């Protein structure tokens, strides 16, 4: 038995409090019988415990209770201050919509920037995406418009429907992506019934002879779990190629310049991030209601921005920018709420 280990010290402390399990107590006591050093340490701990338990409590200053009661009475007399959530509920309700819009627009803009730089795979999974880039762009992906987030898919589909363009069929494969974020894929296909080639790995055309499925770059799901191809083309929940399943939903619409994603303004992004920050702050306050604002601030500032960024951003640069902006937003929210915290 290593009597120098912290674990053994802890066992001695537990033995002092008679909190050690019977078998462990037997083992420790046997050791103490044969080890003077450990026995001395045990006796010292026991002496400390006894000394502290009988130590007189500090005398409470006279009038302290009366001070507390007066202060509490004054606090009761004050009108109830709204909670942070109550104070922010109305703005949040409005800003949430702005946040959704900003985020929906921001995601495709990110993809557009990436595509401009020659990156052709959607940012579903950065490591695997890089793997695909190394293999070279596919023929089909070279004509792709940016990958849209779910919110953007819905917005784009709604816009297409309302414009009644007639040529744009919307087909969404409601299959969740592997990491919680679902991405869509937009192609220039003008036939909604036409089978869609795989977004990443170059899927064979429907008329092409069957061939063994290539090792899909993004096929992290077990092959046995993937749905089989449908003779009539991919249906909801189905796809011709495993990688399509892995990529998540697909949307086929016409390439309409009016639908081209635009970069959100700084104000829109700050608004969106501010809303998220406010919500997270409110959750913090609810879960750590006894924490002071300074403690909250330390929590925020101690949180690596790299951990905050991936919530919405898809690459390291954006993650860093987002993290910094988020932290600033949290700081502002904390400053505003400082007097509200217990």
């Amino acid at each position, binding site marked *: 038995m290593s009597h120098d280990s*912290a674990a053994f*010290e*802890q066992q*001695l*402390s*537990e033995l*002092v*409090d008679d*909190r050690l399990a019977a078998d462990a107590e037997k083992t420790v006591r046997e050791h103490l019988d044969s080890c003077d050093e450990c026995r001395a*340490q045990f006796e*010292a*701990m026991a*002496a*400390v*415990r006894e*000394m*502290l*338990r009988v*130590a*007189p*409590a*500090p*005398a*409470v*200053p*006279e009038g*302290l*209770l009366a*001070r*507390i*009661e007066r*202060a*509490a*009475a004054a*606090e*009761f007399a004050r009108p109830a201050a709204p909670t942070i959530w109550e104070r922010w509920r109305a703005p949040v309700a409005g800003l949430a919509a702005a946040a959704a819009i900003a985020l929906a627009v921001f995601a495709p803009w990110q993809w557009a920037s990436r595509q401009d730089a020659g990156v052709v795979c959607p940012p579903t999974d950065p490591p695997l995406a890089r793997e695909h880039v190394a293999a070279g762009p596919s023929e089909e992906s070279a004509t792709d418009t940016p990958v849209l987030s779910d919110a953007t898919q819905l917005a784009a589909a709604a816009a297409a429907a309302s414009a009644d363009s007639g040529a744009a069929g919307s087909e969404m494969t409601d299959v969740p992506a592997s990491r919680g974020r679902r991405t869509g894929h937009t192609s220039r296909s003008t036939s909604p019934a036409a089978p869609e080639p795989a977004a990443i790995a170059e899927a064979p055309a429907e008329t092409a002879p069957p061939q063994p499925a290539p090792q899909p770059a993004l096929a992290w799901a077990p092959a046995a779990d993937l749905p089989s191809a449908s003779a009539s083309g991919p249906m909801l929940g189905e796809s011709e190629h495993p990688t399509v399943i892995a990529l998540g939903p697909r949307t086929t619409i016409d390439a309409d310049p009016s639908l081209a994603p635009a970069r959100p303004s700084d104000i829109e992004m700050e608004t969106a991030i501010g809303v998220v920050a406010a919500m997270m702050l409110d959750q913090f306050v*609810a879960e750590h*209601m*006894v*924490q*002071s604002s*300074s*403690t909250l601030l*330390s929590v925020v500032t101690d949180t690596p921005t790299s951990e905050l960024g991936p919530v919405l951003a898809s690459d390291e640069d954006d993650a860093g920018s987002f993290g910094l902006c988020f932290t600033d937003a949290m700081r502002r929210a904390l400053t505003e709420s400082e007097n509200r915290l*217990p």
Partner: protein
Amino acid sequence: MGTQAFVDSEELPVRAGNDWGGADRADQALVEAAQAGSAEAFGELARRYHSNVYGIVYRMCGADEAADLTQEIFLRALRALRKFQFQGDASFRTWLYRIAVNACINELRRRKRRSDVEGPSLDDDIETDDGWVSRSVPDETRSPHVLAERAEVQRAVQGIVAMLTPKHRAALTLVDLQQLDYEEAAVALECPLGTLKSRLARARKQFAEKWTQYQDGTLLLDDDAGGRTVVDDEIGRAR
């Protein structure tokens, strides 16, 4: 709830041995009344626990400002009281102690930050490899009640406790001085049970070592200092 209920609840002990059941039940009625807006109920809760909270603050932060911080802790508790719910292992006492420990740790951090900004002073705690060394000089001469407790052991205990790190200090204060059981102390400190045990063992070992130094004369505890080592004196002379 009327005042009569509080009068009845006063008959219940704050603590009977390690059985907090009666006190918790009484607390629950008081808390619910206070949540409904009864200042009297909250006053009764303060009467029950202000001495324990003061003891935690005193042990962790020293006598200086202990009364002010105790009052602030009760105000924080009052402001957060409507969110408190009796669920699972939650008890008002443990919840209140958690507020107290957090407030104390924040106060120690504030003092440390102030020290970082303004530079160290002879009155600030310093952190060493063996933990924190308090060089605060509690103004214990102002109040008769403090003068009355200037027993040698009491002073030495306070001085040595103040040398521990805040987390070790909190574990020792709650378990050995306030006599909470492990589970309650872990809840109050918001840490896993194993962490609490580890901190407690470390704190007891360090306290025992300091106590031995104190008895050997290598650890000096001045009349007006929470704790001062020979090394501190050397640092002081170097300044």
